[in-house]
């Protein structure tokens, strides 16, 4: 049983020393993040997706709207992969053809660009507006706080997808309007997070010191309070990208989002939902693409939460 008792040898001392070495909070967080299994997998998935999106032109064998008409090729042909024994006289179609004779693989590859853009743009916009509103509410307090937060309560009173559907029906279907709708419905989440964070930061001594030194309220808010209050937003924002991609795909699925021939994954699913029984590949692959993307951001968000959690300062 001797082996199971930790020996107080050199190794342990060295570990102790490295733990005591002063590290900046950023370096500490990064180190913890890179050691987190969820974050590792999430980062790997997202990096892969970003690479696919950047090099889509090189990866996709066809343009996303190119029709492949050739003898022997039917509409919605199943996948044909030469390595797996498909007749080499036929063109290689990794994910098969869609209902318009287009290569599904190319469309899924180009779709990664859209989904990443949707995720980053909507979440970015929502964070920006939500942060401003939440910071104003938390810092000003009083009636401004009441008005802003009650408005946010009303927005939160609707299930987000339903509100997004209602907004899109007002603005008219389309990708841009979908982005707007998804961004609007996620504003209250960030406003709430930032407000509560600002509320706790503004009571700190260094804020009082700054005020005593004569800093203007705006300077205190933007230079002293906000940078220290934004940590939770990073976590919520990463998880928010996942939700935004799912919601946008849902709207496109209903025909309210991206319009044909845009290679948007949700739209691709919606267009082919009635062929699920005779051409399941057309439903299977775009869905997998959405799932993997969302999974990547969810895992990274979970990892970030663990890495930024002050209770885990080991």
């Amino acid at each position, binding site marked *: 049983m001797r082996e199971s008792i930790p020996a107080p040898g050199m190794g342990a001392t060295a570990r102790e020393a490295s733990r005591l070495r002063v590290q900046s909070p950023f370096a500490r967080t990064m180190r913890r993040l890179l050691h987190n299994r969820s974050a590792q997998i999430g980062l790997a998935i997202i990096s892969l997706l970003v690479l696919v999106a950047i090099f889509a032109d090189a990866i996709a064998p066809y343009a996303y709207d190119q029709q492949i008409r050739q003898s022997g090729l039917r509409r919605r042909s199943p996948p044909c992969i030469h390595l797996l024994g498909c007749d080499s006289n036929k063109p290689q179609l990794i994910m098969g053809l869609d209902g318009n004779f287009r290569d599904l693989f190319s469309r899924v590859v180009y779709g990664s660009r859209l989904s990443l853009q949707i995720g980053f743009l909507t979440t970015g916009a929502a964070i920006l507006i939500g942060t401003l509103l939440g910071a104003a509410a938390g810092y000003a307090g009083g009636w401004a706080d009441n008005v802003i937060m009650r408005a946010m*309560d009303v927005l939160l009173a609707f299930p987000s997808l*339903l509100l997004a559907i209602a907004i899109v*029906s007002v603005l008219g279907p389309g990708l841009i309007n979908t982005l707007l709708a998804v961004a609007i419905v996620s504003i209250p989440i960030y406003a709430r997070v930032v407000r509560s964070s600002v509320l706790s930061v503004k009571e700190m001594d260094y804020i009082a010191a700054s005020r005593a030194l004569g800093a203007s309220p705006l300077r205190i808010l933007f230079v002293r309070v906000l940078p220290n209050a934004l940590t939770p937003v990073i976590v919520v924002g990463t998880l928010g990208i996942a939700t935004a991609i799912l919601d946008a795909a*849902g709207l496109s699925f209903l025909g309210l989002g991206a319009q044909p021939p845009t290679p948007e994954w949700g739209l691709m699913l919606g267009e082919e939902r009635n062929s699920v029984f005779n051409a399941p590949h057309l439903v299977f692959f775009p869905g997998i693409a959405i799932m993997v993307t*969302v999974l990547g951001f969810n895992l990274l968000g979970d990892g970030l939460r663990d890495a930024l959690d002050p209770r885990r300062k080991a």
Partner: protein
Amino acid sequence: MARFLVRRLLLLLPVMLGILVVTFVLVRLIPGDPCKSMLGERATEEKCNAFRERFGLNDPIPVQFVRYAGNVAQGDFGVSIKNGRPVTDVLAERLPMTMELTLFAMLFASVFGIALGVISAVRHNTAVDVGAMIFANIGVSMPVFWLGLILAYVFALALKGTPLQLPPSGRLTAGTDLPSLLKVWGMEDAQGLQRFVVLFISNSVLLNSLIQSKFDVFVDALRHLILPAVAVGTISLAIIARMTRGALLDALTQDYVRVARAKGLTERLVILKHALRNALVPIVTIIGLQIGGLLSGAVLTETVFSLPGVGTQIVDAITARDYPVVQAFTVLIAVIFVVVNLIVDLSYAYLNPRIRVS
């Protein structure tokens, strides 16, 4: 507790008013003329004027809003522009489907989510735990509508001919006869609340078939509900499983668990009676918070499984610019959502006295 309740109820008023305003404004902003979309592009100006007069669309917007809010307060949602039927009838027809779906999805998510979470926590850091958490991570990342389609493919086509085969669409098998309770009870002339309630029960296929003792119809309806409910509930299941695991792991480190073990209680009793009961507060909260996601999921899933619920109705009504119907459904869903959240808050306060004081 009473003071807390009153304060929460008072806080509800501005939110309810806000819901009414937002819905009213949104619906007025929907581009296009309801007259043209109902009577056709070639409707004469004269006809359109008469149409607008009839539905009060010519009055100033504030007047329309006050009239609308007053009517809603009395349970009157107006008549559908599309087919002239009272909106309350449409509500009573569509709402039961969505509620059945949401309730079943919630039941599925809670039972299996808690079970999975408990197993994960008890077998902490084993292959079972890792497997369950991988499943949970994938579960929260799946698009509901995609899962619905895949389930339909697997259970209606791939498993065709086996006992596991399940119907992929519709509420009942075509040709199944389930007369309306209004007819059965001879209440076709009923009005107001009575009519709404009877219509509601009648359109809840599960309740109706039980009341009329048509058990084959009940089973058929249940079978049609399984796949959509699983599709809608899976995301929530995953979230509940993760929360249960976390809360139970937390509870298992507490002193009272050590005491219970020291007393010599069986591990089963320690986990179910001591740890899990204390872990239930956050679990109940997270289950309540799922209702919004479940309702949103129901909207998407109804489209996949061609179910006559609120979701399909809202999408139809938006395309047809049927103002009153869109308004009524949006308001109702928001109100249900708010009330459920309130109940969750109250139960939380009931379970955890510290909340009441602050």
